[in-house]
């Protein structure tokens, strides 16, 4: 028998999660499918969708703050996000199609912890901070420290992602997703990068988690070829149902060169 708890405030939600092991649901674009097809064993859920405290896009000083429940559509439609973080808008446009964009949330993308999450390389190079709250209080985790392994995060069972804090991004933003088709596609290789004095590069779908590439970042200032060699060491793509390791490796190298070309 599935049960759904419906808190009316974030505080109530956190208290419920302190008391019981509950599976949070928001946009449901991923987790709910498992429930319907019987592949999800969880039985007790907590509905976050109506928690206003988790919504909203605003500036706090010069830090862009995105509520965890911000949908991809809201990101695409936000003038502020378009101005500050166009690579996140680019990524949002490539997620599913309009229906998915209207329900899928940035918090969900992060918590779902898929290595193929389209927003994750963007947040990695933007060096976002993830705000986690529990009944005990709040803590902030640097995006780079958030994932510990395949579908594993530092989140405790009673914590919720409440917001993302993104400092100003200096430099040219770049994003490319290679999906299985032009829309409604899971990424085979997804890359976000920022070109500046301190170039940052992150890739998804080429390792158990989204990965920043410090060796590649260091080498690219010297030459693209050197950076491509470093890239080959830093990523561990696999063969899976959608693509091959060889293809992913080749394409990642090509995209690196393309990024450098297009941001020169």
């Amino acid at each position, binding site marked *: 028998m599935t049960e759904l708890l419906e808190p009316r405030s974030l505080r109530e939600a956190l208290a419920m999660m302190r008391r019981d092991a509950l599976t949070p649901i928001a946009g449901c674009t991923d987790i709910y499918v498992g429930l319907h*097809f*019987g592949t999800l064993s969880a039985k007790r859920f907590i509905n976050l969708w109506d928690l206003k405290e988790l919504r909203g896009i605003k500036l706090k000083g010069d830090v862009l703050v995105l509520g965890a429940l911000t949908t991809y559509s809201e990101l695409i439609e936000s003038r502020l996000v378009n101005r500050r973080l166009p690579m996140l808008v680019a990524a949002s446009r490539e997620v599913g*199609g309009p229906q998915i964009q209207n329900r899928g949330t940035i918090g969900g993308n992060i918590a779902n912890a898929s290595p193929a999450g389209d927003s994750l390389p963007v947040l990695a190079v933007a060096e976002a901070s993830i705000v986690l709250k529990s009944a005990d209080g709040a803590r902030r985790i640097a995006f780079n420290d958030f994932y510990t392994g395949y579908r594993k995060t530092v989140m405790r069972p009673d914590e919720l992602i409440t917001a993302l804090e993104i400092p100003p991004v200096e430099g040219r933003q770049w994003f490319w997703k*290679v999906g*299985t*088709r*032009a*829309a*409604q*596609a*899971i990424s085979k*290789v997804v890359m976000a990068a920022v070109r500046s004095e301190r170039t940052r590069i992150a890739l998804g779908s080429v390792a158990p988690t989204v990965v920043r590439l410090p060796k590649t970042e260091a080498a690219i200032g010297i030459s693209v070829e050197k950076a491509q060699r470093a890239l080959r060491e830093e990523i561990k793509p696999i063969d899976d*149902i*959608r*693509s*091959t390791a*060889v*293809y992913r490796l*080749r*394409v990642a190298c*090509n*995209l690196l*060169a*393309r990024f450098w070309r297009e941001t020169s």
Partner: protein
Amino acid sequence: MPAVGRNVLRKEALAKVTGAAKYIDDFSFPGMLWARTIRTTIACGRITDVAISAPGCVIVTHADIPGDNVIACIEHDQPCLVETDVRHAAEPVLLLAADDRAKLAAATVTIAYAPAAPLFDARRSNTLFKKIDIVKGDVAAALARAHRIIEGTYTTGHQEHVYLETNGVIAVPEEGGITVYGSIQCPFYVHKALKVLLGSDKVRVVQVETGGGFGGKEEYPSMIAGHAALLALKAKRPVKLVYDRVEDMLATTKRHPSVVRHRTGVAKDGRLLAMDIDVLMDGGAYATLSPVVLSRGVLHATGPYRCDNIRIVGRAVMTNTPPNGAFRGFGAPQTQFAAEVHMERIAEALAMDSVRLREINVLRSGDTTATGQKLGSDCSARKVLRDAVKRTNYAKKRAARKPIGLALFFHGSGFTGGGEVRLASKASLELTPRGARILVASTEIGQGTRTMHAQIVADTLGVPFDAVDVADPDTSRVPDSGPTVASRTCMIVGRILQRCAREMKRKLGRLSRREYLKRHGPLVITKEYERPSGMTWDDATYRGDAYEAFGWACDVVELDFNPDTYEARPIRVTAVQDIGKAIHPILAAGQIEGGTAQGLGYALLEEVVMRDGRMANASLTNYIIPTSMDTPEIDAVIVESPYRHGPFGAKGVGEMPIDGVAPAVVNAIRHLGLDLRDIPATPERISECGLI
């Protein structure tokens, strides 16, 4: 105002756009139970034990089958439910039904197996479903005197139909027998199969609004209908069995994968002197329709070209995978893929322009095909080729090395020569006060059957389109018009209806319809298929007039190629297609546009990943069909080169559009210098491709 040639409002349009049209899952019957199918998890072996825990459920095993445990098709080799021999993964073993879906889901069935070594590689299979040989002239001698011999092997994979509506039926015990309602292309196929399975004549099959078929609901529904019927008879209650997408993809039929080898002898001037072709089709675990898929495949294997010396050897073999079956094109997309990529390679070998090579060899009126069929005046192969080349500025773009490719192809309408005679299809027309009612087994599955038939009858009878209505395909009410397949619904069944309408008009004479009915009572005219005189076909030698008529087509595909990601995206697609006559221009264009889009998926995106003989990507997330973003506007150019025995000159249109897309796509990729010979042309495959 005549209806034929006009875009009349299709009969069920308003019901479909308002959401009022009812498909099988929209129906409910009092006391109805839901059903579940328990399937094998291994691909080959024997079942040694079955343990069932299913409280509150009705259970059906092979022991409950009153007639023969067989899904009657061409052969009787496929069981309805496994007894002990397992021949493929997802093979049905037993059935459950319950009025509580939670109980149904909670039931557990544990099957123990003694596995055996499965055979997955068709090239290694020695179990033959069918072999066909076509011989014309003397291939060995011609090869010996050829200026050059060009060889090549081409492969195609499975394709899944992805009709938006999955397979589904409701079986209702009625009047000492059973009625099955369902998403069905061929009600009489199901009817026949159920009679054998149930050992009873008290069977009625009714097609309800169907959300796409493409051949995937040609023979498969006999299986799902059989399952629902067995449960309904045991439970004595209506039973609904509708597959979810995952089960539909895992268990139902797919397009036959193929391996086609060409060995062609050419003269110095580019004439084809000898064509030696080997066709191998992977039939999966049981025969189903493999013999006929192979037949159409070999009959189209040369492509639309003339040659005096032809040898085609076709084999359909068994593998331990779910049986493959009908899918739009039915063997012709596979063999014409090979033929048209091979033509391109011949041109490359001779350093000749490939359009010129085609012009030299294309079939013309009066030429004979591989089976010795003389082509009539409606042969427009050269016309469609020239039209497509001109319209797309093909020569200029080719010279500029743009990734643009072309394919010339054809498609026989109707069943093969002997097939239509054997089917002996019937159609009936009933006089009504307003006009007439069409009684046929032909089904509306999206292509516009009801509308097109009504247009033909309306104009022949001389009544308004709205005065002609169409009865539901209900086997207790309509005659067997044969299956809704093989591009025959207009040309063959439409023609029979036309003859019915002519006779009705004659019988009415000067009486009005009401007067006639008052004076004479009801009037139903039934006519049967008549093969045009002069047509001959010999099944034993595979010689003669294979099809009543051929459609001719030429596709040009222009791609955009990303050298960083190896993605090829179609940006312009032109399909010039001779269909004889467009009874309804929008419906006809719809068939061309839809078939072409399905061909783009077949060429670039759609791949069935098999692991241990089971589809590993059985979901719409991982089996990729084109979205709106993947599909450019398709320029469908209808050519009308009338066939004199077609109603208003019409030939077939449903299948031909899918035959030529994949080779046009691959030929475009080849123009980048990549030696691609297999589909799907995924970016992964392209990135591994050698250079020409």
